[in-house]
């Protein structure tokens, strides 16, 4: 009536009851506390990166720095070659985005919109792999890459990234949402399958592609374990393993210096997230619907 907002669990009438109001107040306070605990670690990381060495070691620790010491950043970059690592990350990301995307999109389109023999069998062939824990093939996968001669080459990361059943499922369910009639009409008009795919399906699936891009970016930027196993030359390593070996595991670096480098490493994903937040949340919802 007067309230334009759609009701949720509670209605306007509930807000007139004192007990409900108290409960709602407690809930708001806990959410506020949660929000603070979400932001606090970011805050300390950023602010500690500006502190002087003396201030880092004082107790009780302060939240805001007494003075801003920007020289921590210059100091920090002496310990890591972030520039080289950054380019490595970009190259790795390009491959991690493009190669699996081609593989996965073709497979998803085929499973969803094309004539296939044994469709159920093929779907099972892909989806079964989701049930197998990565623990089972972690070691043999490494040995397999070794025997294929891929160790210390980016192909060892690019090609296996295509073997992702979850992404195939994501793409398939996306293509399932497009009406079959569209492709049938195109085929009757004489379009080849390739044309159906590139001129109809691909332009329509920009949102789901951007989700894949985001997944690839997060993975490339964050993974330090597997990448540092497969890539053995230090100069070829992307950012995460470089930071892990030189900063995270370093015992004699002061915290302010460590945090200055870590702040720099944290910023690109944050920017990426703020730009693509809609797509990220959308991708999450897609995966939730799948469940």
């Amino acid at each position, binding site marked *: 009536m007067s309230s334009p907002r759609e*009701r949720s*669990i509670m209605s306007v009438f509930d807000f007139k009851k004192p007990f409900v109001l108290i409960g709602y107040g407690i809930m708001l306070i806990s959410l506020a506390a949660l929000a603070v605990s979400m932001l606090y670690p970011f805050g300390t990381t950023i602010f500690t990166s500006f502190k002087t060495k003396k201030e880092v070691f004082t107790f009780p620790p302060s939240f805001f720095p007494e003075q801003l010491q920007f020289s921590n950043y210059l100091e920090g970059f002496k310990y890591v070659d972030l520039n080289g690592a950054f380019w490595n990350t970009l190259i790795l990301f390009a491959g991690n985005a493009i190669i699996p995307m*081609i593989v996965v999109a073709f497979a998803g389109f085929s499973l969803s919109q094309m004539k296939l023999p044994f469709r159920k069998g093929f779907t099972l*062939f892909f989806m079964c*792999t989701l049930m197998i824990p990565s623990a089972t093939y972690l070691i043999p996968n490494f*040995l397999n890459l070794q025997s294929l001669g891929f160790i210390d080459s980016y192909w060892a990361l690019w090609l296996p990234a*295509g073997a992702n059943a979850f992404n195939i499922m994501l793409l398939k369910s996306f293509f399932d949402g497009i009406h079959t009639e569209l492709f049938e009409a195109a085929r009757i008009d004489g379009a080849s399958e390739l044309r159906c795919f590139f001129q109809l399906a691909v332009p329509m699936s920009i949102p789901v592609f951007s989700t894949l891009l985001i997944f690839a970016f997060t993975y490339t930027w964050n993974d330090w374990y597997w990448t540092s196993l497969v890539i053995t030359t230090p100069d070829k390593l992307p950012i*995460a393993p470089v930071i892990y070996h030189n900063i995270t595991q370093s015992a004699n670096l002061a915290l302010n210096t460590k945090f200055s480098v870590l702040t720099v490493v944290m910023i690109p994903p944050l920017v990426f997230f703020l730009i693509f937040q809609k797509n990220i949340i959308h991708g999450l919802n897609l995966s939730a619907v799948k*469940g």
Partner: protein
Amino acid sequence: MHAVMFSIQYGLYGSYYGREVSFVAMELPASAANRKDRGLFRKFKDYFWGMMFLLPAIAVFCLFLWTPIAKGIVYSFMNIDFVNGSYFVGFENYREVFASRDTGIAVRNTIYYMFLGIVIGFWVPSLVAIAISELRWFQGSMRLLVYLPNIVPAVVLYTMWQYLYDPLGPINQFLSWFGMDTILWLADKGMAMIAIVISETWQNFGTTTLIYLAAVVGIPKDQYEAAEIDGAGVLQRIRYITIPGIRHIFVLLFIMQLIGTSQGFQTHIAMTGGGPNNATLTYMYQLTNEAFTRFDYGKASAMGVLMFVVLTTLSIGLYAYQGRSKNA
């Protein structure tokens, strides 16, 4: 002759015509053998592009997923030696795994880790999701906020939390306000695993919260309306409408969390290195130790296969249980 020409001609126009053409072609005079040939050829034309599109995925899956899985099973029965050649040893690797004292510790730690993950982490997202869905203001910002820790690269997370957990760090300072003693979070045998679970929960609960939130928001509002008219209080509405509405996600995420945590090891490597006194040595950590520090690939593969058996049994059991309770 005619009929063959027909099918070739139409075949060239694209597979989709196949269906209509067959209708026409059937009426043309043709020998039985010809018709069979035509069928095969048409089938091939029909399926050609579908298979071509699927081919890269099949190749990649075979090469980088199914081959390692198969090799893992084979390796688990072998002694892997790159210099002198590998040979079969039967169940020797498995016997070693069961005989090893470290495996016992690792299994116990992993179960404890899974248990803590449920006690500390599992209930949080659903509660937060319901709370956020009730927010009248800042709902969008809250959604962003809970997802924010996901954006932190793990390598940053480790140092960040090592600092927060420091004996002289912010968390102990916070506890001292309430008159509590200093806790040696990462150096204490009893606390190290708890500390790891808290930091991982902090980072990961945003994803699941958003999944729950989508489900909570999707519950039809008229159900609440009807319940309210019938006199149900707010908590009763949550108990009898909201929670049953997100139940299916509950079960799914429960299984997924169990599978995920049973294989956790990277945070343990980075934050505690398995210590203090093996208190955070998980099964997967032990597995990678066998492979990459002791180079006993056979034993590591055997541990992987055992993991597969246990997890598959577990998830089949849980799904069966869920199916049964749904029917009841």
